[in-house]
């Protein structure tokens, strides 16, 4: 089992990061399910995905770094990519929704 090789502080920090990431992600997805309007629904997944991905990737980086005994930061690539791409998709979807609502009301 992996946890026997990790020091205690790493186990505590990684577990905390995983729990926070999971909670934020599930709350964001619950917002996607429960909110009433598309523009209200937009908030939940954008927040949840960014913070949840950040927490999980930080935990993954910490695990592999502590296990390898040296900094292993290749998960930074996914973090960078998700943080860059999530606002772009949100903005494009909002633009599309605005355009479609306007075209339908005309």
């Amino acid at each position, binding site marked *: 089992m*992996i946890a026997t090789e990790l020091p*205690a502080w790493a186990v505590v920090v990684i577990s905390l990061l995983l729990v926070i990431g*999971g909670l934020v992600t599930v709350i964001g*997805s619950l917002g996607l*399910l429960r909110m009433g309007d598309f523009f209200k629904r937009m908030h939940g997944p954008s927040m949840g*995905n960014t913070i949840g991905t950040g927490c999980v990737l930080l935990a993954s980086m910490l*695990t592999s770094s502590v296990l390898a005994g040296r900094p292993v930061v290749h998960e930074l690539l996914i973090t960078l990519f998700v943080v860059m*791409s999530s606002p772009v998709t949100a903005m494009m979807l909002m633009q599309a*929704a605005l355009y479609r609502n306007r075209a339908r009301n005309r």
Partner: protein
Amino acid sequence: MTMLFTYAIWFAQTCFVLAMVFAAVRLIRGPAAQDRVLAFDTLYINGMLTLLMLGIRSRSTAYFDMALLIALFGFVGTVALAKFLLRGEVIEP
């Protein structure tokens, strides 16, 4: 300590799978096309996170490459769908 780590990983994985279920319900039920695209975006990000949890559990680096590919192609797919909803064409002449 071992139990704490195991429980945290179980909890996080359950949360991500639950989030995937919520996104799938919205994907099926969504009233407009943009809701479905947003739900698809959430779905693939949560799938990527589930894969990363598997990677933490099994300390294998193969899952990292899969997660990177999912993030990459999911982004391309979402942008293409949003572009299609906006203009009616993916690649404009």
